[in-house]
């Protein structure tokens, strides 16, 4: 089966940490540019079917535990970004589409290609 390309944006119109949502049949695809890379996922949450790509993009929250095992607070890890579904807050790893609290759940991933100045998703 040959893959179809869906136009997303011109490269100059798609900035770092931006998201575009493109229609695809009866649903949509969320395309992200973050930490220098492009990612695309179906806008359909594995929980109750919410629009996962219409929520926040958040850095992972991590616990700060000292050597002596005492709790020192929390911090953001900007290397691991999460797609957060706006309906109930399920968080997906932007790099893999896996749900971070239980990795057997995931968003459907699409390939993104850049040709010349244009960005497409393959469906």
């Amino acid at each position, binding site marked *: 089966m040959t893959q179809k390309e869906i136009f997303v944006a011109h490269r100059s119109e798609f900035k770092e940490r931006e998201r575009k949502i493109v229609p695809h049949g009866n649903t949509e695809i969320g395309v992200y540019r973050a930490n220098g890379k492009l990612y695309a996922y179906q806008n*359909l949450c594995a929980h*109750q*079917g*919410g629009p996962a790509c219409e*929520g926040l*993009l958040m*850095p992972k929250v991590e616990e700060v535990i000292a050597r002596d095992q005492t709790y020192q607070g929390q911090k953001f890890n900007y290397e691991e970004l999460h797609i957060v579904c706006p309906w109930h807050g399920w968080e997906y790893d932007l790099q893999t589409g896996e749900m971070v609290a239980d990795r057997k759940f995931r968003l459907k991933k699409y390939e993104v290609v850049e040709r010349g100045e244009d960005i497409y998703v393959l469906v």
Partner: protein
Amino acid sequence: MSWYELPTSDIHKMAVEELDTSKLLTNAARQRDERNYKDLLIIDVDCHHYENESLREIVDYIEDPVMKHSAQMATTGGTGVQTSFLPGLVGYQDIAGRVTRYPLRKSEKTPTGKVHRDVTLTLRWMDAMGVDYVCLFPTPMLAMGSHPQTEVEVNMARAYNRWLTENILYTESRIKSMLYLPFNDPDATYKMVQDFGDKKGVVGFMVTASRYAQVYDNAYMKTYSLLEELGKPLAFHAGYNWSDPILATTNRFIATHALGFTFFNIVHCANWIVNGLPVRFPKLKIIWIESGIAWVPWLMQRLDNDYKMRSSECPSLKKLPSEYMREMYYTSQPLEMPDDLSVLETTFKMMNAETQLLWASDYPHWDMDLPSKIYDLPILSEQAKRNILGENARSLFNLDTSPRFPK
């Protein structure tokens, strides 16, 4: 752009500048159409509005002149920081803005005119989900049971109930409610049932569970008798109170919520049974709202096990505690979804879900459930799904659904 601005700056970058419930729920509407909900009666037994946004209107209904003055001053002027007439709760229901309908709620546009904004908003999400009727409850008032001044609870309850019946229930017949009872004052509770029991759209009465009242207190018996006589159910709506001494030991809201929203109801349910209230009021229908259902088999087993050894402490009971619990009603949300569905199947069996379980969305709160939570379950028969999604509630509330489903 600093990362610390991310939540708000990202929200502002959303495809819609302001919240649009119908757009946020596009995928719910797709589920509605794919599953053909238009042929299915769906009744939502627990959903909410934000009465704080109508507080100025509500306090005008306060009957006590001194308190009304105080409430009007606090609402229109005050310090602007808080009002003692709607005490807030410490908590993080919106998961720090991740559940975006919280921070964006106020930006949603509704037409100005005769129809109340809360009616417009409620119908918007009902239609998106394919819901026919709802039972609407307040939000901040769920915490009113811990207000230190009983007279504030009583006055606000009456004002809210008058405002709700006149402005919402009288105007939109798809919206029903079980009215707030000022349970810290048993006489005012009784009077509320007397005064509002026959009002349009009132399908029962509701006690907010996060409080320290003793449900077996003799002072409540006349209210239970009256409710039984009227054939109106009594519901206990779960809630948390982070200042409760044991909950105050939790430091992450996940624990406060997971425990708080079950244990107040568990305590009231245990007290209700071991004091023999199901025997004294055999026709009074009891509903436990918003505690999920995993606690039901737990309490059944705990009470049955103890009862077999200590039946002398509850001599009224004529059968096992679990058998009384099986005659009570439970709302489904937030329905726990174990990986192993046989766990859920056992829970359904133990509680007689086919006749006792009532679907609820809890929309727009953060842990809301869609009808598909029940509709898509492979462990339920078609009839069980129909019952849980609407038929059980129809018979419980004796609802005339013919306007939505003409014969």
